[in-house]
């Protein structure tokens, strides 16, 4: 169960980096599939809440104990606390970006897609830091 959730979490997180990159590459050409692809990206950002929420609520408390008892307590207190709340804003950012594409404001959507890429990548790195923190 935990591994399945973890894979879903990682794959969906990677999709939130890869899909916006593809969207940005085709933003000027405005292909027919751009709206559908933008919608799919926003949908993934909402669906990602399910595995991430389950992992955080059910499985993270044991890791949290290890991190806080180790030599990197900040990995929980700063990194994980920030990560778990930044993650709540991913669906909002993706929905704004997709909404702009749907309403023909593709140019304005650019910076929101870039923010989605940066934030998703940062959250991934932060997850890795927390994982290392549990081993310290």
């Amino acid at each position, binding site marked *: 169960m935990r591994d399945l959730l973890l894979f879903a979490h990682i794959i969906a997180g990677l999709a939130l980096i890869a899909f916006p990159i593809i969207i940005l590459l085709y933003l000027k050409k405005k292909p027919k599939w751009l709206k559908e692809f933008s919608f799919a990206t926003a949908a993934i950002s909402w669906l990602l*809440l399910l595995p991430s929420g389950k992992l955080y609520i059910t499985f993270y408390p044991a890791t949290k104990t290890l991190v806080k008892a180790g030599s990197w307590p900040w990995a929980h207190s700063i990194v994980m*606390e920030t990560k778990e*709340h*930044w993650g*709540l*804003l991913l669906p*909002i950012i993706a*929905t*704004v970006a997709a*909404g702009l594409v749907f309403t023909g404001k593709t140019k304005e959507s650019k910076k929101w897609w870039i923010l989605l890429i940066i934030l998703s990548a940062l959250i991934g790195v932060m997850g890795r830091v927390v994982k290392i923190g549990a081993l310290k």
Partner: protein
Amino acid sequence: MAKFNFYLGAAASAWLLAILIVAAELISQFKTFLANAFTHHWIGKAVIVYSAFVVFGFLLQNKKSILNFSDEKAAWYSMLGSLIIIFLFFAIEFAR
């Protein structure tokens, strides 16, 4: 934008999340209330913030600006501001 204002929905939810985080960390009874009401404080914040996104997005659908800021700028700077405040708050709380 017609029908739904993605910008102002996002601005409202970004600020609300920052406020909820600070309030929940500084007032333990509020964090407990969120946990009791929604089974977990994180779920409570999520439900409130996403509800605000939808509600304010519809309520402010015809507004093009707020406090002399265009809705686009309000959303962008609110989102960046919220992200920065969240990180700084936890960093400061840890350092205290």
